[in-house]
């Protein structure tokens, strides 16, 4: 190899190293840019809302046309709606997921069901709201109520729960099923004792992520349950209620002379609620991963 050949080779290697360095820097930058807005949003909301946060903010009714006092009814309403959504969507979604993953034969019919579920997840939430208004509020005469709102949110949440739960069930190695059956187990015993316990963390994560989305949505509750202002807390599932996302919308756009810290305080409460659910989901997932034996 001549001197000039060696030189060229050296330069080529140097060039490759430089390209690699540039590539890494670019990718790192992309990652940073995606995280930045999230961090900024959270920081900004908490910084602006902090002055409004106090004990009474959580425990008092709104006063002075919602320009003062607390946001208790909105918090209570969102809790009710989240619980209601869970009660309806978890059994239904889990049942559907178990059917699809364990029992359903692979044919045109079940493929259609799967495609339907995927498409349901893509429907804009305001359409769910209109659907809930038509079916639950008007046709079934539930009125604007926690029941109608929870049902609407549940329908919106179902696709998320079904698809994540089905994925979690399918991830359990099929050899476990074969062994359990070979030891004289029925299919249902196998699902109960082996498949479900192994898939549980994944299923829980999906449920929480689905409910979290439901808790933060405005459009589906707009026509089905949410009240502009109510002087008392809901006393049954047939009452309308205030809810955090809609309340936030109201005080941000519909009430003149609204103190800004109350707006951001409300946003901060909603954000903490959703983020803490997210954190729980993350913890469940990472714990299960560490414990998993396959």
């Amino acid at each position, binding site marked *: 190899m001549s001197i000039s050949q060696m030189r060229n080779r050296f330069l080529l290697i140097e060039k490759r190293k430089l390209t690699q360095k540039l590539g890494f820097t670019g990718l790192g930058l992309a990652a940073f840019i995606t995280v930045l807005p999230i961090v900024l949003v959270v920081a900004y909301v908490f910084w602006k809302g902090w002055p409004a946060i106090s004990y009474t903010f959580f425990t008092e009714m709104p006063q002075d046309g919602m320009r003062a006092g607390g946001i208790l009814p909105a918090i209570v309403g969102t809790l009710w709606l989240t619980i209601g959504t869970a009660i309806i969507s978890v059994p239904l979604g889990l049942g559907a997921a178990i059917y699809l993953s364990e029992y359903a034969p692979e044919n045109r019919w079940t493929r259609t069901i799967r495609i339907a579920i995927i498409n349901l997840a893509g429907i804009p939430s305001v359409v769910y709201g209109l659907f809930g208004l038509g079916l639950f509020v008007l046709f079934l005469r539930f009125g604007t109520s926690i029941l109608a709102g929870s049902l609407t949110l549940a329908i919106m949440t179902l696709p998320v729960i079904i698809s994540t739960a089905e994925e979690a069930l399918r991830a359990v190695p099929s*050899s476990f099923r*074969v*062994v359990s*059956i*070979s*030891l*004289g*187990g029925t299919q249902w015993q196998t699902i109960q004792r082996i498949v479900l316990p192994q898939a549980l963390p994944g299923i829980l994560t999906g449920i929480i992520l689905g409910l979290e989305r439901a808790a933060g949505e405005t459009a589906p509750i707009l026509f089905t349950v949410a009240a502009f202002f109510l002087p008392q807390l809901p006393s049954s599932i047939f009452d309308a209620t205030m809810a955090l996302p809609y309340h936030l919308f109201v005080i941000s756009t519909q009430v003149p002379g609204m103190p800004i810290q109350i707006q951001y305080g409300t946003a901060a409460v909603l954000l903490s609620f959703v983020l803490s659910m997210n954190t729980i989901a993350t913890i469940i997932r990472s714990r299960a991963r560490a414990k998993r*034996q396959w």
Partner: protein
Amino acid sequence: MLRTLNRLNDLADVVQLSGQIWIDGENVLDPGTDTIALRRKVGIVFARPVVLPMTIRQNLTYGLELAGNKNRTFLNETVERSLKAAALWDEVNDRLDDPAVSLSGGQQQRLCLARVLALEPEIILLDEPTSGLDPISTGKVEATLEELTSRYTIVLVPHSVQQAARVSDYAAFFLGGELIEYAPGKQLFTNPQDKRTEDYVEGRFG
């Protein structure tokens, strides 16, 4: 073929079957067969040991609990009896509540055998039970099987021709899903009647 004997093939989607399998005067392939009872009577150990994601003890009591057996003393006795029968008791008796995956490959394979023995089956199906094992573990497993033949009918798909010749009382030769020859082990391996069996045993193909 093994999975046909206890109808585990029901789980697979596409299987073509012809013929009959008679166990204790009942045709196994009859659609009316109680497959749950059949699988308790005809246990199977797979080529790759699959321990269930639970403790050693729970792996052993799993089948009995599925059948509704809750008697603690009986379960504990069964754990000890089946582990001893599978020559695993001495190695694990002080850590029965450890996760079963913490065992070595050979130990897991013997645990799978013990798990089947716990159900007191009549027939045990073994699918290349030593294929993933080193010679020492293989020896242990084969010695265990030797002892078990006195009490159970064992159907074994051997890992190699040598193993088949070593352990079999009766041997059957299958080719392409078809039964070619069935004879006492000594005869099949030393004096096969069918040309194809002879070719296989002498290592001309396979």
